[in-house]
């Protein structure tokens, strides 16, 4: 029965954990566990970041400590970027012993993990969660014990404006790590380093060894300054590297050529743009001149379009959506007045759902592609959505649409309410090849210029890799590939040969029907070795296979990916990494595993919530009537100060008990906000405010109070007049 119990516990616990609202938008490697008086803590974090041309490898060593007397299962989430980071290793350190992971099929790994828990074994599992599009690491931690996870992430680096940029969310580590935080950054390139900078920490010394290696260190949370790490670097000229494979018969090669390379100069033609403007016209936009700024921003954005470029505007509010035209329209300056009139005809009202207009955006993106234009999505809003999908699901929806249509996402926040709103916009845009700006008001022209300057489009299509004379070629890079403004063309391949053999690698493309090319022919000994090149090839290959599966869903490709990812220890949606610890910390304690499951529910018992919830006190109440009224009043104020009400995001108001209320299909409703006197439901794509009747006693006491006040004041004046008369008359 025990395994069944464990499976049941996990089955109940996982949905809870996975559907728990995502934390701050900058969540990275976030610990999730039910509320507990003694939550799992992170003793310390060590991070090793290795960067090279087009590739980053990050090893995160986190020491977790369970300060409570109960067995715990920590959940560590890695919301990785689609098409970018992948987890390529997991190890578990207990004391001085490091336990390595084994790569397995996803289902098998989960079964093994559950079996291990049932047997009371310590285990760690890293797995992909498809509905949430996150990777999570489950770690069991016995009472008063520490567990250290060693997780390796690998990701390709995209060249933007000639620079490779790497962003590490150091602020999360700095916030969580109690005792220590150490970060080591090592940049090693094949071509000479031309520039290295750390924007986020300009005072951090960068130590250069030779012309191809740079090092930087963060040795404390104070040095981290609670900021994320933003590293950028560029190399001089074309970069060529190689690495030998462990079989001794093959080698890996990489050639990267900057888009600004003279070889491309005559062939570069920026692709025309199609601006898809997604405009928030919800109730909150009516406050503080936001709508005026949003209209002005839209017009300014469109004003940047040139002949041959097109645009579409979709304004969303509540359940309705207004589009400028049903299809994309070619831009011409005389459209300005027409667009202005369209925007003037919209009155902001109702709730906010960023994804309600996605079908239109997808249609426009396809249309742009057919017209040979580059779709670029601009989201103009004041903050977070109030309805529809939220948090991580929302980020995933934007990732999907951006990835599917190869469409960068940019955002403009008009007078955002708080930093959380800005964070959300940052996540929706920054990780989808775009960027965002916050508009405060008069800075609008500058902010629009800033965002337009950040827009990049493809400049060269159909660039193919060329490896003349090479045998057994397995390309990991895209072929053909597209070169973006400020980007690069890259060839990563595995070919037969040793590092001592001559190497010929190049690129081919056509320019108005004329075949053009770029070739690099070198002696093997002239080409530098890059130890990370093999990992880069593996990662690129996994991404290529994943993309193929996404496009065709071919079972044979899935099997190929499973075999490849298992062989190279990469966590994908189809493979997992599992660490099993051979023996229990307390042998014979068969209930410890069950307790691990039970602990997931700790603090969530209905009784516990009821007892701690204000206003739910039952039985003898020692609060004075004034204190009770203060609580009622506070609850009422809290209800009415709900951001959805304040920002006028409500589509409909219904009074409880009314016929309209009785006609609501409450089973389908999602409770967005549950107050004491009001509830806000997400129902039928509307935000419905349900108002409960206020407590009767409040109204009676109000009435009595006002009446008594009038009586007292009137009587007082009468008595005073009478007293004056008495004094004047000398009555005893």
């Amino acid at each position, binding site marked *: 029965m025990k395994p069944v119990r464990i499976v049941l516990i996990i089955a109940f616990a996982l949905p809870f954990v996975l559907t728990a609202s995502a934390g701050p938008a900058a969540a990275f490697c976030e610990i999730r566990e039910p509320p507990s008086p003694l939550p799992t803590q992170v003793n310390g974090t060590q991070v090793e970041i290795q960067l090279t041309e087009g590739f980053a490898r990050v090893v995160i060593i986190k020491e977790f400590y369970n300060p409570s007397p109960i067995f715990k299962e920590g959940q560590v989430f890695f919301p990785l970027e689609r098409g970018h980071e992948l987890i390529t290793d997991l190890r578990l350190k207990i004391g001085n012993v490091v336990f390595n992971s084994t790569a397995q099929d996803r289902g098998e790994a989960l079964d093994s993990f559950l079996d291990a828990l049932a047997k009371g074994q310590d285990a760690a599992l890293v797995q992909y969660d498809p509905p949430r599009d996150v990777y999570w690491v489950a770690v069991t931690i016995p009472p008063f014990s520490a567990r250290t996870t060693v997780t390796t992430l690998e990701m390709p680096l995209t060249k933007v404006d000639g620079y490779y940029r790497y962003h590490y969310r150091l602020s999360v580590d700095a916030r969580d790590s109690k005792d220590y935080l150490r970060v080591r950054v090592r940049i090693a390139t094949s071509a000479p380093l031309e520039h290295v900078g750390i924007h986020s920490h300009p005072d951090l010394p960068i130590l250069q060894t030779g012309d191809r290696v740079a090092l930087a260190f963060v040795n404390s949370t104070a040095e981290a300054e609670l900021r994320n790490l933003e590293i950028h670097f560029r190399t001089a000229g074309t970069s060529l590297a190689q690495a030998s494979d462990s079989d001794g018969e093959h080698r890996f090669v990489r050639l990267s050529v900057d888009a600004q390379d003279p070889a491309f100069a005559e062939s570069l033609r920026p692709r025309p743009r199609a601006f898809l403007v997604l405009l928030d016209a919800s109730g909150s936009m009516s406050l503080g001149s936001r709508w005026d700024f949003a209209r002005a921003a839209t017009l300014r954005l469109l004003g940047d379009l040139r002949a041959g470029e097109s645009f579409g505007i979709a304004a969303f509010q509540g359940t309705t959506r207004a589009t400028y035209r049903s299809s994309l329209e070619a831009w011409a300056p005389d459209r300005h007045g027409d667009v202005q009139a369209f925007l003037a005809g919209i009155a902001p009202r109702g709730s906010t759902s960023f994804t309600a207009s996605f079908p239109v955006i997808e249609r426009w993106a396809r249309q742009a592609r057919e017209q040979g234009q580059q779709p670029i999505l601009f989201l103009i809003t004041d903050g977070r959505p109030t309805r529809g999908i939220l948090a991580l699901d929302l980020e995933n929806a934007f990732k999907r649409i951006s990835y599917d249509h190869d469409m960068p996402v940019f955002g403009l926040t008009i007078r955002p309410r708080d930093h959380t709103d800005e964070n959300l916009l940052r996540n929706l845009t920054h990780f989808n090849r775009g960027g965002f700006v916050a508009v405060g008001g008069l800075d609008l022209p500058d902010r629009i210029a800033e965002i337009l300057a950040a827009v990049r489009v493809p400049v060269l299509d159909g660039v193919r890799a060329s490896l003349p004379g090479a045998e057994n070629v397995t390309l990991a890079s895209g072929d053909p590939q597209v070169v973006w403004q400020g980007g690069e063309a890259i060839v990563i391949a595995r070919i037969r040969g040793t590092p001592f053999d001559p190497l010929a690698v190049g690129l081919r493309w056509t320019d108005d029907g004329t075949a053009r090319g770029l070739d690099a022919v070198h002696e093997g000994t002239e080409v530098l070795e890059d130890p990370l090149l093999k990992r880069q090839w593996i990662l690129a290959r996994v991404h290529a296979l994943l993309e193929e599966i996404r496009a065709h869903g071919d079972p044979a490709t899935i099997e190929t990916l499973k075999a490849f990812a298992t062989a190279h220890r990469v966590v994908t949606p189809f493979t997992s990494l599992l660490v099993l610890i051979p023996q229990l910390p307390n042998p014979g304690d068969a209930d410890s595993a069950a307790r691990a499951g039970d602990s997931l529910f700790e603090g969530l018992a209905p009784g516990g919530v009821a007892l701690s919830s204000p206003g739910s006190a039952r039985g003898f109440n*020692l*609060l*004075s*009537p*004034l*204190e009770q*009224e*203060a609580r*009622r*009043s506070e609850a*009422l*104020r809290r209800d*009415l100060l709900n951001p959805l009400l304040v920002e006028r995001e409500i589509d409909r108001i219904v009074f409880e008990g009314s016929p309209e209320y009785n006609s609501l299909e409450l089973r389908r409703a999602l409770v967005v906000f549950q107050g004491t006197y009001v509830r806000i439901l997400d129902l039928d794509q509307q935000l419905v405010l349900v108002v409960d009747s*206020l407590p009767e006693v*409040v109204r009676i*006491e*109000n009435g*009595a*109070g*006002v*009446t*008594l*006040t009038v*009586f*007292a*004041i009137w*009587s*007082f004046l009468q*008595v*005073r007049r*009478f*007293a004056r008369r*008495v*004094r004047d008359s*000398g*009555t*005893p």
Partner: protein
Amino acid sequence: MVIRRVFRRLAAARVTPIRIALWSVQVGLLSVLGLSLTLSSFGLLFDLRFARALTGLSVGTGLVGLALAHEASHRARRQMSREATRFARYGAWLSFSGAIVSSGYLGLLLPSLFVLAVTWPIVALALILYLANHSEARRSEASFLSLYDPAENTSACTRCGSRTFVPQGRWVGRQWLCPRCQPALGGVAP
């Protein structure tokens, strides 16, 4: 003691019972006003500190109003002012209502009952002593009134029994004394 001293000063200043009774009414109305303003603020505008201040004020003024009404009612009897007696009664009721309801809202009622439940023998003894003392005063006032002759405006001295013109007599403690019986006792004018 402070209240007694204040009342003595009022008596010395020859403040009439009707004025004290009217003060008690006014103070009682203030007590009710404090309570009613608190009740009016229930709901969104409610502020606990402000409400506590108002109800606290209401309890305080209620107690003062009760003291004034009490004093006024005694003086009214001694000076045979029916109107003052009526207003003193109004003042007492208003003050009592304001104080008791406000203390209820303030949450003082339950703790007071708790204290009473614990210390009831002492409280009962104190109450008996007070009532005994008070009933003696009421008896002498009743005796004064029963011996009062409205035609001659005279009454009998509590000590020697001689009839005395009322303006010449004085209340000393709980006794109404003729001029001959007054000096040694330091009585005060009614």
